[in-house]
């Protein structure tokens, strides 16, 4: 299976699950598990090639100009992580099937889980870092959905929000860091970046890039001081915690550090940021874990601590550190996930996760005890389990690290961390399973196999890895560590390193100290309880509250609902900025001469200016003002016609007609006059602003018209290619349907959406009681005018209908070569039909309407889309047009272009949108009690006898 398909598989499975949603939870879980299993098998299919030391690569250009490519790469490191993601993912799916209660929405859970799985898999398979970032953000989003899965629980919502805010903010920092990295390396492909370590480390941008990327990794992997989101994310269902917060999502930050290790690691800066952050996090997390009572909180802080350890190991920048990090990633995933599942089982059976209320469960739940026992011992680092082995290697690496010249500091702190780990691991085990049985926990028993089998599989791995490390896991560590270091790695994992090994003595110290800590637990606990604790959550919430308060203050000052003032402010701002930016700049020389004026044009211009003035002056009388504005539009279309733009003239005049009809219809409901409300000063202020705007635009237009463009206009291409390239002589039309067809495609969709919005608004108005009552109130006397549908008008419009349509067809057909086209034809058709509505009434017209206008819009968009897609069949880009000339003997040679089909889509969309908008206004009138004409012309014919 190709890597691209492998990366897509979880998303496809998610789609399948959502389709199967109604078949019940077994089918859903089965589909999810099957999809994951197939991916897992496919992953192993790539193993031979990876083992041979070759990365599997699959590439596809996506946005090559932006450096974003759908390039995937699978090497040892990617394989290890993909194995964790899919392997543990499969077990989690099984576990979740039995864990979730029957009231929980199953499909949603599995869809989110699979989407998350896909996002994680995408991160570890990405070769392109921009692609990686995309998946990275996707994990933030999907984990938000998963943590907040129990939407009714406030803690779940708050925890999800916090996780999203912090990992999302870190993701932004990382975005900047990766962009810098790509800039330095000259490519966004990892396979290129990883070869440029020298250039990257020598670059002055190395430090900012490193800090930004580490910010992303630290927030994701819950390193101090960003660790606090992880414990709050425990509000998620336990399968989510086991998956996201032990094995996958929190390891994404580590993955990134490991992935970029060859180019970023090795510098002092890397060591002091990453290793220090990791070490502090390790000790701090382990310390807090000792004092938590909630099982999941213990595990959460323990996870914080272990992530810190791995971060520290990567931060060392040494090969030994990298090998130890890889091995501990494996060990931690295998013992932490079952511990979460065990906590979930206990919670499921005992209905509490509070360690102070638990105890003595070893007899009642022997299987759960056995699983918890082995996993917890591994977490504590008890030999021979895998936790012991990885801890030994880690301590060994720490023992040889000196911090700022001090040799004993790092080993000491690391030993303290290990000591705390021993303490909380034993406390977890003892608090839940050991001690006397609690009376209120009587009658508990082990869960169904569905719940204990998945952790059992992982615990088995813990044990096998522990007993035969070289046989079972050394190969995988070698593969992954080799990929981290970009060189051959040879791994030796032993239980016994001899008495001279410092790690041995550090371990001994950790066990002794850990057990001593537990012995003095009661005293330490009271000190802990009294000690002040810096609370990340409180700081985070204070920050949010501060931001919200600031936003509210700004909004209250500026957004007071006074729209006319916003307008004034916006216009004044634009005017000032224009003035500011052009101030002091000289105009270029005038390069064009004035076009001579004719007398007729002068008269027309005078009429136009008079109409504009009158519309403004008399604007309070709305019908008059509307007619004047309509007149302005007509004069402008005359102007277009005069200035060599016949297409514009046609469009303007037809749009003007439908706009005026629309406004008249609306005025039917609105007040007919505008009361005088603003004072002298306000009106004077508005006038000053308006005049400044007018003078400014006039000056700009004048200056523009008398100068040639600084660069040669691109229209020469369109004029040249109109005929040979697009097969039409009307350059405006060929631009619309061909050269810039994609624009037009977007525009007809916008128009269609506008019409649908209108229909929706009318629907909402007719449903609401208030507006409905007001409408009924508005027309108290139905049929005020006796002659609402005068016979002469009706007959005239009936005659106009076919003529108008014929003109529309004519305009449509000639559009490619002569002025016209889909837009104008659609408007002409609409006017012809509108006249029927006006003359004969809504009811009469609607009764004769075969198609819904919604459908006409949809058909238009579909035809345009299909035309565009059609070019794919000829292996050409979307919307490439083709044309041919056909000559049939009796008539002249005519041309058939796919562009004409596209124009048909435009035509239908325009027609449907205009009609939908206007007919909906008519629907309002009907709802207001206006009666439909029952007979043609409203004439009641006397009944004939015998019929």
């Amino acid at each position, binding site marked *: 299976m190709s890597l691209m398909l492998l990366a897509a598989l979880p998303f496809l499975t998610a789609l399948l699950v959502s389709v199967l949603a109604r078949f019940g939870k077994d089918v859903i879980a089965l589909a999810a598990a099957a999809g994951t299993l197939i991916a897992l098998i496919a992953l192993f299919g790539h193993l031979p090639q990876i083992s041979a030391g070759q990365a599997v690569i699959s590439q596809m250009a996506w946005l090559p100009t932006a450096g974003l490519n759908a390039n995937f790469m699978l090497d040892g490191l990617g394989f290890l992580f993909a194995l964790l993601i899919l392997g543990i993912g499969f077990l989690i799916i099984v576990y979740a099937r039995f864990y979730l209660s029957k009231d929980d929405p199953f499909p949603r859970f599995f869809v989110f889980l699979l989407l998350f799985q896909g996002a994680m898999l995408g991160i570890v398979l990405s070769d392109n870092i921009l692609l990686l970032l995309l998946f990275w953000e996707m994990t933030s989003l999907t984990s938000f959905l998963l943590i907040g899965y129990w939407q009714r629980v406030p803690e779940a919502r708050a925890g999800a929000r916090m996780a999203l805010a912090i990992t999302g903010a870190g993701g932004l920092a990382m975005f900047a860091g990766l962009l810098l990295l790509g800039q330095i390396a000259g490519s966004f492909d990892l396979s290129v970046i990883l070869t440029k370590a020298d250039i990257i480390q020598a670059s002055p941008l190395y430090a900012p890039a490193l800090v930004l990327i580490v910010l992303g990794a630290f927030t994701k992997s819950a390193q101090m001081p960003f660790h606090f989101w992880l414990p709050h994310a425990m509000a998620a269902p336990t399968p989510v915690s086991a998956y996201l917060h032990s094995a996958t999502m929190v390891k994404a930050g580590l993955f990134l550090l490991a992935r970029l290790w060859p180019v970023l690691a090795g510098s002092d800066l890397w060591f002091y940021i990453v290793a220090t952050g990791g070490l502090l996090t390790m000790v701090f997390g382990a310390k807090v874990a000792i004092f938590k009572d909630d099982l999941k909180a213990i595990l959460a802080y323990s996870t914080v601590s272990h992530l810190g350890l791995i971060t520290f190991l990567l931060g060392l920048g040494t090969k030994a550190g990298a090998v130890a990090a890889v091995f501990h990633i494996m060990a931690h995933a295998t013992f932490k996930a079952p511990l979460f599942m065990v906590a979930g089982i206990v919670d499921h059976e005992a209905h509490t996760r509070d360690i102070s209320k638990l105890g003595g469960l070893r007899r009642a739940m022997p299987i759960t005890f056995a699983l918890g026992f082995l996993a917890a011992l591994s977490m504590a680092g008890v030999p021979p389990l895998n936790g012991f082995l990885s801890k030994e290697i880690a301590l060994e690496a720490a023992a040889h690290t000196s911090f700022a010249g001090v040799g004993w500091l790092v080993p000491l702190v690391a030993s303290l961390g290990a000591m705390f780990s021993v303490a909380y691991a034993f406390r977890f085990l003892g608090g839940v399973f050991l001690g006397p049985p609690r009376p209120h926990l009587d009658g508990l028993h082990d869960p169904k196999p569905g719940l204990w089998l998945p952790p059992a599989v992982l615990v088995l791995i813990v044990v096998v890895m522990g007993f035969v490390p070289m046989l079972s896991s050394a190969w995988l560590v070698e593969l992954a560590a080799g990929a981290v270091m970009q060189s051959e790695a040879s791994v030796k994992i032993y239980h016994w390193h001899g008495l001279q090994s410092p790690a041995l003595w550090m371990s001994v110290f950790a066990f002794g100290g850990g057990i001593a800590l537990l012995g003095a637990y009661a005293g330490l606990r009271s000190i802990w309880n009294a000690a002040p604790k810096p609370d990340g959550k409180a700081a985070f919430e204070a920050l949010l509250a501060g931001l919200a308060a600031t936003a509210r203050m700004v909004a209250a000052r500026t957004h*007071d*609902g*006074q*729209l006319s003032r916003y*307008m004034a402010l916006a216009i004044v701002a634009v005017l000032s900025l224009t003035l500011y930016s052009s101030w002091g700049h000289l105009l270029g020389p005038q390069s064009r001469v004035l*076009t001579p004026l004719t007398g007729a*044009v*002068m008269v027309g*211009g005078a009429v136009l*200016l008079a109409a*504009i*003035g009158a519309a403004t002056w008399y*604007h*309070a009388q*709305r019908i008059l003002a509307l007619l004047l*504005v309509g007149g302005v539009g007509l004069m*402008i279309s005359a*102007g277009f016609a005069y*200035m*060599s*733009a016949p297409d*514009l003239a046609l469009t303007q005049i037809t*749009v003007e007609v439908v*706009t005026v009809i629309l*406004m008249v219809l*609306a005025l039917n*409901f*609105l*007040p007919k006059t505008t009361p005088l409300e603003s004072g002298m000063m306000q009106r004077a202020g*508005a*006038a000053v602003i*308006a005049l400044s*705007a*007018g003078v400014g635009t*006039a*000056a700009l237009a004048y200056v*523009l*018209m008398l100068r*040639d463009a600084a660069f040669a206009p691109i229209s020469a291409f369109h*004029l040249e290619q109109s005929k040979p390239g697009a097969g039409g*002589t*009307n*350059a*405006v039309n060929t*631009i*619309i349907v061909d050269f*810039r067809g994609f624009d037009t495609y977007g*525009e007809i969709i*916008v128009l269609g959406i*506008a019409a649908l919005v*209108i229909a929706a*608004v009318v629907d909402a*108005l007719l449903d609401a009681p*208030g*507006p409905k009552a007001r409408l009924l109130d508005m027309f108290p006397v139905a049929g005020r005018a006796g002659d609402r549908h005068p016979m002469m008008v009706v007959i005239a419009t009936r005659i106009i209908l076919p003529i108008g349509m014929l003109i529309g067809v004519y305009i449509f057909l000639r559009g490619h070569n002569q002025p016209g086209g889909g*837009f104008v034809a659609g408007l002409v058709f609409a006017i012809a039909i509108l006249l029927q509505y006006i003359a004969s009434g809504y009811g009469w017209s609607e009764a004769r309407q075969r198609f819904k206008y919604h459908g006409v819009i949809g058909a238009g968009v579909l035809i345009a889309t299909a035309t565009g897609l059609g070019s794919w069949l000829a292996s050409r880009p979307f919307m490439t047009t083709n044309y041919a000339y056909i000559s049939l003997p009796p008539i002249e040679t005519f041309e058939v272009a796919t562009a004409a089909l596209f124009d048909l889509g435009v035509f239908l969309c325009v027609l449907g949108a*205009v009609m939908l*908008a206007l007919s*909906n*206004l008519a629907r309002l009138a009907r709802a207001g009690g206006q009666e439909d004409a029952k007979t043609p012309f409203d004439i009641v014919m006397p009944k004939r006898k015998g019929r």
Partner: protein
Amino acid sequence: MEILIAIVIGALTAAGTYLTLQRRSFPVILGLSLLSYAVNVFLFISGRVAINAPPIISKGATQYADPLPQALVLTAIVISFGMTAVVLLLALGSYLHSGDDMADSPKTKAIE
């Protein structure tokens, strides 16, 4: 000719701006219509003034008007119809809901 066009654009802008600064919805909509005329004409003349030179390829023609601004304005005219229709409906809806056609929020009247 250019002077007249500039004056027309200026007048359309001034009238449109003045009307959009009104407090009732209908004058604002009329103002937006006038402003769209101004914008469309402005965009159109960015192809410069050309008389008797329609951008329709023919053998005898020596000069063509710039077709690109025309194509852009053509779709802009149709889109501005869509916009006017939506705004009008929203104004109508607000009037039917609240009983007045103020564009400004009524709450602020009390503050002033």
